[in-house]
């Protein structure tokens, strides 16, 4: 399974913080995962949208594999 995590404004817009997706040939990259979980609400998400895979910063073009945790969130504001 692929675990999807959403934070901050992304979580509020999509309405959940965690989802599980069955791996499939159509889920090759983080952008495919985003399309699968956001659907038409993708247009409402903050831009730029950041991605982490397995708790490390990644890109929408990064490859995704079975067992990965893929997180989507707005630009961060630590400190």
């Amino acid at each position, binding site marked *: 399974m692929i675990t999807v995590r959403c934070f901050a404004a992304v979580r509020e817009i999509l309405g959940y913080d965690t989802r599980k997706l069955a791996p499939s040939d159509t889920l090759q990259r983080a952008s495919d995962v985003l399309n699968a979980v956001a659907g038409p609400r993708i247009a409402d998400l903050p831009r730029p949208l950041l991605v982490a895979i397995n708790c490390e910063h990644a890109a929408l073009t990064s490859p995704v594999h079975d067992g990965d945790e893929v997180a989507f969130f707005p630009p*961060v504001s*630590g400190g």
Partner: protein
Amino acid sequence: MIVRLQTEDFDPEHEAQALGVKGAGARVSFVGTVRDMAADRTITALDIEHYPEMTKAEIMRIGAAALARCALLDVLIIHRHGHLAAGDRIVLVVTWAAHRKTAFRGCEEIVDALKTRAPFWKKEITDQGDIWVPGEIPAP
């Protein structure tokens, strides 16, 4: 290097004194606090959300990079999350180095990296409603 995430407050001087760092001729401390005003709005509190499984690992990566790049002797980073009031301390970054320039540079690099890489998101509770603080966009 010590990295801590917590909801409770910290005493910056007590935390910095707790680490005895051999060879240090300089210690630089940065304390970030919750602003009470921004533009035309009054801020009463700040809700800080984070990505618990990633945050500590990412801050460790930030600290390790600064240790190596700036010839620091040691680093302490404490970051709070949860509900904080205006004026509360949010973050403490302390760097130790043989000399002041590297201690200053290392501290600034860490604070800058926290802004763009550490997975925290801040929501201001203000007299004009709740507002997500725009994050900083990392350099490509």
